[in-house]
């Protein structure tokens, strides 16, 4: 079958898609966007997290046919050319990236969190990222990165981090 959708704002067509193929497979193998990672194909690790119509989902659990006429956003769409999104920059600066296999999913999930909650508490951060496994970092530097990104975004908005806005 043919699936027509947008990826990172660009109209995209994938041909010869099998019924059983996931959105993750289509992104990685058919439209040349391997940034989203496959570490379990069971919805357990979050490495494949992408936006679907603005909500984060595990791309491995979405059948390709389900994205017909819908909008997909991936890690490749977070940066504006060479300008990293504050979440990406914070992951680099805080040392939250080791092997980096978990990173694309964590970035999308964190990006979503910080759109919803400008000053998340540590407990809120942990809850929001609880579906994203990382085997390398022990999450400490990931926590630092999320806090750093939240603080920088607040600075850019000119707002003080005065507790959670949820």
């Amino acid at each position, binding site marked *: 079958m043919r699936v027509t959708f947008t990826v990172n704002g660009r109209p995209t067509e994938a041909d010869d898609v*099998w019924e*059983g193929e996931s959105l993750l497979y289509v992104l*990685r193998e058919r439209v*040349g*966007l*391997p*940034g*989203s*990672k*496959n*570490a*379990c*194909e*069971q919805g*357990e*690790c979050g*490495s494949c997290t992408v936006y679907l119509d603005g909500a984060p989902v595990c791309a491995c659990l979405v059948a390709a046919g389900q994205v017909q006429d819908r909008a997909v956003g*991936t*890690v*490749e769409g*977070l*940066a504006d050319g060479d300008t*990293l999104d504050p979440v*990406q*920059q914070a*992951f*680099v*600066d805080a*040392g939250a*990236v*080791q*092997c*980096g*296999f*978990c*990173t*694309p999913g964590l*970035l999308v999930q964190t990006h979503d969190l910080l759109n919803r909650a400008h000053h998340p508490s540590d*407990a809120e*951060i*942990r*809850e929001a*990222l*609880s*579906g*994203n*496994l*990382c*085997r*390398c*970092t*022990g*999450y*400490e*530097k*990931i*926590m630092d990165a999320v806090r750093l990104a939240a603080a920088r975004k607040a600075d850019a908005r000119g707002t003080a981090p005065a507790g959670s806005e949820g």
Partner: protein
Amino acid sequence: MAGPTTPRNLSAVSAPGRDGIGASPPRPDGILKVKGDFAYASDLWHEDMLWGTTLRSPHARARIRSVDVSAALALPGVYAVLTHEDIPGSKFYGLEIADQPVLAIDEVRFHGEPIAIVAADHPETARRAVARIVVDYDVSPAIGPVEALDPERYGHVHAPADYKAHASGNIVHSQHVHHGDGDSAEVRARADVIVRGEYEVGMQDQAFLGPESGLAVPAEDGGIDLYIATQWLHVDRQQMCPVLALPPEKVRLTLAGVGGAFGGREDISMQVHACLLAQYTGKPVKIVYNREESFFGHVHRHPATMVFEHGATRDGRLVFVRAEIVLDGGAYASSSPAVVGNAASLGIGPYVIPNASIDATAVYTNNPPCGAMRGFGAVQMCFGYESQMDRLAAELGMDPVKLRRLNAMEQGSVLPTGQVVDAPAPVAELLRRVEAMPLPAAAYRRTGDGVDLRELPGGVSNSTHGEGVVRGIGYGVGIKNVGFSEGFDDYSTARVRLEVINGAPVALVHTAMAEVGQGGVTVHAQIVRTELGVDLVTIAPADTRVGSAGSTSASRQTYMTGGAVKSAAEAVRGTVLARGRRRHGWTPDLVAGLRLVDGKVVDRADAVVADLVDLLGDEPVDETVEFRHRPTQAFDRLTGQGFGHVQYTFCAHRAVVDVDVELGLVKVVELAAAQDVGKAMNPLAVLGQIHGGSTQGLGLAVMEEIVVAEGRVRNPSFTDYLIPTILDTPPMPVDVLELADPHAPYGLRGAGEAPTLSATPAIVAAIRAATGLALNRVPVRPEHLTGI
């Protein structure tokens, strides 16, 4: 897309004069990784490529009566179905002993053993073809670690005539260590108290997030180019060449992006399979394991059963230790012999004990093969000896940290192998520091509305509001060796090139080191900046065009390949200065004091004597150096004596847990660590290693185990094999000590493994403190706490 997406040069740019050793510059691959542009092995693509898959045995032990591949071959889109009969060269491989068939020959010895491989034009076609292969099995009962020790009754895992090296019966390798008077009757009589404990460690998986993957591309010269996620390119090649019947120069490996390793990529997995399919079809072949296959596709941490006896005087001085350890090596040898060597030589922990008798043995079984995982034989032992230290402290009515500090080894201490520790060994100091860290506040209130469920055991499943929750605190400390041991010729190779590009001096670093996430590429750039005074450093992709770097394991790469990069940079500097001497007539005395700083040659008084760009001109300087650590010795087979390890590394942990004693749920509240790293080459990366290692120790303590029943793996998925999430992982304050090892480059000490050792016993000690239970097995499960 055109051509293979292959690894590229990484540019590491720093502000002028900054970001040498001791700084924490960003990773040179960091931006690629956060943009989703970093080419992991599973992301590779080639025009016209095929997908490979593997048929694996559903049985742990069976004769193969027949294999019929005709239905698989008949499927449209299938290009090849290969069995052992199609292998052009040797049919066996192995890290230390070549006892593992590339594809099963007439029998299978573990659940998941590869039998046939398929190449097809779509991964789903390849999977369907695998399902059409018909194998006729004659199944036998699996031999487990208990049966393995009685081969007369239960049989052999391998035909007795096939056992190689020290293997015999079902024993892969054993090592005895006899220290002082062992555990003789006289020694025992000197102890006022003797405590005995039996402990078990379950099978842990590395669970790196990026499953095994690679792309094999047949070349015009009849050779193969393999882009691969591995830990050691050259030893992969060494095992591949005989199977492919190709000389080394025709098997070229390039490191693709690696999604973590932790020992699980030390053995080869799909490397040979992809190359065989590429050789046969003449087309590029990519193999990417899914998570389930990954659980079957690599070795695991050895399960262990351990019996310890510790004798001490009434005032807490250790008199002797007796330890008997059996490690389940699984069906093939992998690195079991070296794991046994570690377990035996490090088996009493970082303590001074005048007498010891230790026996460590690895057995062949029909369980999944076990080999390298972070901590490598020292993890299991640490759970045993630290549990014993707590038991002894309780018996003596002594504070457990005080008991440990009283017996702690230090520089100058003699190990049970007879080796004198000739570098700092601040064991007591690490314990003192970790104990002195402030304790976390009680995270919950027993009553009232202010309870945050997320702070409690059970979390938002709302299983308690604080009732039944008890806090416990526990400690652990461990000792791990760094580098390859027991007389192995351990070396690494680095090539450094210095040249002028666009008017600026630029250094290129080329090694075969596997960057698996640890940040070696960052440190290499830092070393070159420090030694050569340049800001721009390029890291070339790791490949087999340069000499071996050894494995990214044994906490050795910063020491070994870092040491090689340092030596190569020094050689480059020497050549540059020799050029200056020839050209400008510099005196030997002047040259002896010259350094390269900020693109200039400066003398002892920091006066500029030349500009590096002028000195280099259009003649690059290019040096390749092999670096070796001090030689070690094999342990004596009968006594375990010998200078077996080149360096030791230590970490101490304090764990604070809350346990819901009614439901058996554990929340680790805090996991504090103190570790000596000799020199923190990159403090941010050091913290990353300590946090990551501690978290894997936490996983072993309370959740991680591959459950094997009668040889069959029951939980090969992330649904059933749980690794710590961000909710399971607590804040981890770290105190880093830097006491230089005079024998190591920059005084550094390998950092990656030690934290994995002591986290586990510290957490279990904390759970014991909260529950009063003995808890002799890890992982600790809820049913162990509730008795149900």
